[in-house]
């Protein structure tokens, strides 16, 4: 593998998703090539920064008041015998395989 290919596969190397042969080849290369070794450490630094990103970002406005109105509406609706939106969620989830939106909810 040349230098550009080594750099291309470094994210896969760090994620340990390469076949053993390629993993060993890259490991050897970055131990012997200053340029790729430096790139490897910069990439690790970048991934570390991404891992450290805050899990939360506060929205500029407080949405609670609007949501509270929705809760009150829902209560009134249910008291009048209305049904939940589960039907529309089932319709929205058109994906046939993999993890779909409706998989987030219990079956009704």
């Amino acid at each position, binding site marked *: 593998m040349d230098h550009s290919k080594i750099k291309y596969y470094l994210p896969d190397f760090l994620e340990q998703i390469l076949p053993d042969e390629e993993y060993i080849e890259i490991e050897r290369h970055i131990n012997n090539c200053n340029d790729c070794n430096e790139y*490897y450490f910069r990439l690790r630094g970048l991934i570390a920064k991404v891992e450290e990103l805050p899990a939360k970002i*506060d929205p500029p406005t407080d949405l609670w008041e609007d949501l509270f109105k929705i809760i009150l509406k829902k209560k009134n609706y249910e008291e009048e015998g209305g049904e*939940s939106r589960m039907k529309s969620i089932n319709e929205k989830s058109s994906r046939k395989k993999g993890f779909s939106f409706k998989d*987030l909810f219990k079956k009704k």
Partner: protein
Amino acid sequence: LHTIKKEPVLNRDNKLISSLIENAKAGNNSAFEQLYRLNVGRVYAVCLRLFANLRFSEETTRKVFETVIEEINFKRDDFSFTGWVTGIAVHLTLSEMRGNEIYKETDKERESLRVKSVLLSNTDKFIVTLPENIRVPFVLHYIEKYSIEETADLMGVSQVEVTKSIKEAFSNLMGKL
């Protein structure tokens, strides 16, 4: 040499959250409010990093909690509350990105610069200015910890395409950070 191992995601709620969920299901508004306050930042972060658009991130955050209000009785027990609302946020955001004509027509570059101006982390500032086609798989895989397979499935593209986009995102970010 060290490789990177991802942390397992917790899928159980602690006693406080479980009790808030039960009270919210029983119609306790204060419990709902606490669940909202504990999770709104998490939901907004997901929407903002995927959308790179202030208006749509706020609107979708609102829609996520509307869904929570409507469907809390159907929350699966094997998901933590935060994991559950995050999942709803990811699905609703991707659905809006695919189907909302107004969003599709927005000037994405200009919007991402507006988002950049409100973010605190330099890494975030660079991520939101990545083109959408490489930013979304990067955020889903590297920040939200979806596997390559799950990311491909969520986006409706091949795993090869996801891997290629993520590498492009890295190469783009390496030039900036």
